[in-house]
């Protein structure tokens, strides 16, 4: 039914009976991210809209200095070696992709001349290839012309395992060929509904100059001097870099976009902590922009009173969730805890899982911790703006949870803790050390206690919790606890990679050194079938319906309890007009930033 409705809606947009915005709203209502909705339209035969620019200045330069404060400073400036988003942010000041994402999830052209679509013949209707036309006349900062060779080279550089890039997954399964100096064709190994990953956005898309990196492909990659002194095509030219401390750049007078950039110099300072970064931007105005201000809302509200800056928010798809372990973390089988040969003694009863989800007081978590930086949600997969699957709902009710447990036979024992068949409702709840997470733990624990569930809290240092160290028992993939809480950023405006994690074949076990991505160890045939179908499904409408089904399955089975849909929080001077997208790095739209006096 959803298929048909979407299809007729696409027809309406094509014939001009419905405008694009209305379409996106309608699709968002059934649980689709705006960038994906736009790509559905592109595949359905309607060209993708180019993001509307809000840029006002009418001449290049003259804006003085732009001072950015990244409290975790970039430590290297090769985007394909980035160990975190901070390094992508820093590289993006100088390097550019073909296109990037604006706050609404629309595509914005950077080095490309045209958005590929089925009409203009650049996008294959079956999703097996996409052709990009490049902007003519673009020059690298050293004066050499930018051409299709650079794009092809970037692919060759990244996909070589000896280069040891972190973006290899985006590029290894596709083929890039040069058609002419200003045209490249990407051929995918299989139909690829999300065709705008390679060469798009700051995460994996930044293009490197062939003439400077050609000698440093493969095992010599670390020796390239340009790893630390980038020569790009971006709005600012590189001046100086001190890892972890400072990046400086000056205006690129030959920039390929008219009247841009606005600022004459740029400075990105690193170090310190989020609270004092907020203070330096909002209260004293020493800096113009502060990155990732994950600070309690009342602190921010206090700083904003009569301050020189304010906080700004961008909606993406980041969900803070509590994951439930479907295996038994307390029993060791063949030298492995949380083994697939076991079943969780408590969570094998669906009533317990359901009751637990009723005990997570999302309103209080929002009020007490995240404030303006969070939205309550029932969905695991959250999109921009109106991403609320209509099929799901949540509520907080200790009474209903208690009743559910009573009905399922979990009766309070002498100590007030519920038990059934000699099994007590005692849970170990782990997360990484991080102020808001510990507070969330406390809120959940309190509600659980009232309902007769005893919760033991555990917090692990983040560098251990998220580590790939096989020998450490406290990592999140090992999941030696009953429930655990964290967030997996949806760094790409498409759910496929995000949702593939929970395939049955991806369960994290001793055999695969806990590299499997399915850490709740939840196995569901319907989910597998839907994901596999979605991966091959070229019909974008059917594909969308499949992902909605997957989200609803995760909800019905209570695999995850979403605690909060988190927004990006940044601090900016009152006069600064930054463009921040929840679907892109902070510096992805930097060319459109300006100051209003």
């Amino acid at each position: 039914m959803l298929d048909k409705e979407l299809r007729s809606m696409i027809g309406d947009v094509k014939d001009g009976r419905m405008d694009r915005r209305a379409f996106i709203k309608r699709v968002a209502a059934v649980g689709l991210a705006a960038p994906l909705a736009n790509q559905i339209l592109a595949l359905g035969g309607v060209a993708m809209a180019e993001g509307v620019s809000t840029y006002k200045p009418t001449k290049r330069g003259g804006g003085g200095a732009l001072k950015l404060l990244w409290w975790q400073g970039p430590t290297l400036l090769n985007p394909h070696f980035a160990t975190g988003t901070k390094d992508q942010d820093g590289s993006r000041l100088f390097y550019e992709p073909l296109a990037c994402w604006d706050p609404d999830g629309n595509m914005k052209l950077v080095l490309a001349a045209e958005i590929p679509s089925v009409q203009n013949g650049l996008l294959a209707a079956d999703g097996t290839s996409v052709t990009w036309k490049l902007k003519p006349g673009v020059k690298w900062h050293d004066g050499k012309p930018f051409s299709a060779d650079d794009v092809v080279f970037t692919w060759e550089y990244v996909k070589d395992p000896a280069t040891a890039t972190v973006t290899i997954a985006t590029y290894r399964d596709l083929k890039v060929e040069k058609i002419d100096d200003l045209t490249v064709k990407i051929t995918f190994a299989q139909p690829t509904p999300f065709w705008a990953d390679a060469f798009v956005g700051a995460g994996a898309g930044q293009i490197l100059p062939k003439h400077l990196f050609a000698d440093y492909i493969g095992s010599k990659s670390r020796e390239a001097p340009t790893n630390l002194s980038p020569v790009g095509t971006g709005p600012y030219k590189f001046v100086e870099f001190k890892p972890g401390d400072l990046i400086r750049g000056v205006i690129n007078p030959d920039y390929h976009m008219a009247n841009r950039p606005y600022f004459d110099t740029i400075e990105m300072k690193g170090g310190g902590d989020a609270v004092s970064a907020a203070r330096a931007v909002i209260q004293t105005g020493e800096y113009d922009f502060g990155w990732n201000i994950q600070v309690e809302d009342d602190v921010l509200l206090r700083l904003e009173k009569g301050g020189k800056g304010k906080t700004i928010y961008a909606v993406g798809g980041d969900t803070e969730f509590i994951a439930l372990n479907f295996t038994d973390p307390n029993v060791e089988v063949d030298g492995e805890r949380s083994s697939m040969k076991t079943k969780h003694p408590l969570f094998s009863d669906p009533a317990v899982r359901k009751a637990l989800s009723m005990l997570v007081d999302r309103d209080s978590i929002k009020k007490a911790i995240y404030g303006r930086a969070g939205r309550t949600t029932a969905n695991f997969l959250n999109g921009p703006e109106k991403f609320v699957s209509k099929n799901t709902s949540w509520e907080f009710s200790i009474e209903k949870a208690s009743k559910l447990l009573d009905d399922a036979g979990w009766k309070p024992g002498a100590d007030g803790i519920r038990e059934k068949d000699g099994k007590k409702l005692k849970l170990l709840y782990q997360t990484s050390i991080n102020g808001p997470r510990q507070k969330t733990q406390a809120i959940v624990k309190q509600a659980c206690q009232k309902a007769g569930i005893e919760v033991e809290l555990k917090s692990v240092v983040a560098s251990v919790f998220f580590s790939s160290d096989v020998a450490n028992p406290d990592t999140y993939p090992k999941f030696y606890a009953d429930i655990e809480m964290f967030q997996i950023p949806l760094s790409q405006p498409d759910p496929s990679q995000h949702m593939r994690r929970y395939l049955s074949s991806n369960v994290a076990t001793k055999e695969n050194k806990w590299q499997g991505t399915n850490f709740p160890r939840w196995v569901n045939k319907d989910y597998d079938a839907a994901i596999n179908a979605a991966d091959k499904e070229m019909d974008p409408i059917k594909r969308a319906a499949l992902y909605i089904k997957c989200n609803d399955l995760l909800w019905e089975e209570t695999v995850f309890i979403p605690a909060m849909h988190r927004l990006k929080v940044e601090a900016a001077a009152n006069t600064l007009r930054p463009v921040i997208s929840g679907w892109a790095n902070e510096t992805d739209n930097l060319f459109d930033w300006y100051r209003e006096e």
Partner: protein
Amino acid sequence: MSQYILRRLMIAIPSLLGISAVLFFVLALAPGDPFSELATNPNVPPEVQAALRAKFGLDDPIYLRYLHWLSAMLHGDWGFSFVSRMNVDTLILQRLPATLYVIGSAQILALLIAIPVGVYAATKPYSLFDQIASTLAFIGFSLPTFFTGLLFILIFSVTLDWLPFVYSTDIKATGIRWVLEMIRQAIMPVAVLGLFQAAYMTRFVRSAMLDVIRLDYVTTARAKGLGQAKVIVKHVMRNAMIPVVTLIALQMPAVFGGAIVTEQIFRIPGIGSLLISSILSNDTPVVMAVTFVFACLVVLFNLIADVLYGWLDPRISLR
């Protein structure tokens, strides 16, 4: 004398080897790895993380890694940072000027306060001046630098708006204005660190002076009719300085090692902030290099202190 120094240097070799081994094994046993941030990025498959671990040799046995490190170090190759893929020595040299400037100034400030105040207080023990100095010193070293640092920021940056609280390494001015800016931005961190050190040293200088000032030869000197100034400076101070020199010599490595807390609060890009960020991101080669250099400096300055004893007090002979 030169024989003595040579012998001391020879003894230092095994102790440095021991220090490096302990450091390396402790760091290798510490949990976590430099690629943990990749783990939660669904775009980066776990194989990539595993491949990087293998490429950087993190999967080799610990003793092999130590031997690799040691032989490279002997050849002057400090290795490269996992996080920035940059040579460790360049990374450290880049951070050194800020640390030398800020921490060095703080030490000088501390000495300029501690020695006169300590000496004067000792000459008039339990006088009003001594009482006040002692009380202030007591308050000074009881207040941790993270507290005074934040207090200074609140007063001088937020409320009064006189001084910047983010240290900048690229000041866009030249000549005298550059110098003034450099001084202006260093006032708060230098004051915070310097006053803390001064408080600590004042008490030390005072008690060292008091120990000496009561000795018979001082009384003799006074009986001979020497002036107060001459007695204090020539006779008392020179002897009292021996423990003070030890203290200062052992403080010197800290001038190179940076001050972790203060550097973090004021965003000073020094060795201390490099060390803490490397520890947090499990960047072992950098942590190893910084701590090892620190160990070498401690050994070196110990030696210098011992040599200075001989100069201050000829009765101490070095053999």
